[in-house]
């Protein structure tokens, strides 16, 4: 049933090229408008993935810089708070689940689940950021500041990720506001889906940061 609903969401706006040929100019105006809507979503989705792929290069450069600093300053690496970051990792994983929970809500017309899911992401994302700030304060207390070579590599990488979290949170508040005003329906939810892709990417990057920075 869910798939059927989802099919309706996509295809009700998506007459194929073959149909256009068959029906000729009879419905051309409406069909072209609907097809344009669908193809713009498909194109936007591809653009989003291209953007995410480009982001990967940005993060990889900083990860490599961190690896160099980590081996040069093992004593600074020993100061990292792994238990706290492990809790933060679970928080971010849970926020990703909250995103798909919200998305599945809007796909089935369940507005309450959509709003709860979005609120969950905003709450968990904020908690993640606050714990990260606490960790930064703790690191500074141990003398690992931006002036320290290890600190420079550490803060550049985790700070860039934190900036992505903040952008994702601002975007989440925007999406929540639109959801609260009933903009998203089971036939129109691409705004939630696109923001979700961004948030999941932030989660994927964190999965590698957690392993490379804290565990290795």
């Amino acid at each position, binding site marked *: 049933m869910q*798939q059927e609903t989802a099919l309706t969401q996509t*295809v009700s706006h998506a007459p194929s090229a073959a149909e256009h040929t068959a029906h000729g100019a009879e419905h051309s105006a409406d069909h072209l408008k609907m097809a344009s809507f669908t193809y713009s979503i498909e194109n936007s989705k*591809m653009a989003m993935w291209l953007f995410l792929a480009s982001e990967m290069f940005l993060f990889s450069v900083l990860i490599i810089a961190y690896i*160099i600093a980590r081996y040069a300053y093992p004593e600074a690496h020993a100061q990292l708070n792994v238990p706290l970051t492990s809790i933060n990792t*679970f928080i971010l994983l849970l926020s990703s*689940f909250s995103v798909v929970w919200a998305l599945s809500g809007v796909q089935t017309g369940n507005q309450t689940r959509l709003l709860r899911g979005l609120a969950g992401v905003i709450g968990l994302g904020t908690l993640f950021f606050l714990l990260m700030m606490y960790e930064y304060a703790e690191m500074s207390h141990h003398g690992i500041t931006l002036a320290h070579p290890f600190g420079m590599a550490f803060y550049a990488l985790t700070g860039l990720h934190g900036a992505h979290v903040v952008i994702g949170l601002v975007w989440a508040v925007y999406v929540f506001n639109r959801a609260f005003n009933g903009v998203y329906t089971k036939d129109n939810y691409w705004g939630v889906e696109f923001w979700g892709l961004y948030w*999941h990417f932030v*989660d*994927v990057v964190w999965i590698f940061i*957690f392993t490379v920075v804290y565990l290795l």
Partner: protein
Amino acid sequence: MADSKQLTSGAPHAERHSAKHATPGTYVAVLGALAVLTLIELIVVYLGLLGQILLVLIAISKAWLVLQFYMHLRYERKILTWIFLLPAIAVGIVTVIMQFFVT
């Protein structure tokens, strides 16, 4: 709905792919798998087991689960997977090469 079904049969292949979604049960199962894999990572670190290669493999598995099920790559056109996967492989190769210079 009849109109929708009619359109479905004629919809382009790519659109039929993007129309599928994971179920809420799948989302819960993936969350459970991610949590278990993270716990295994922590156990590996604190017990000092096999070490680096295992940790990297677990991280790749976790990322793959998020990409496949939460980001719906499994249900999308394959081109989107390749758009993400090819740069990821390139980045992975460069990172591994760098390891030889820093250790």
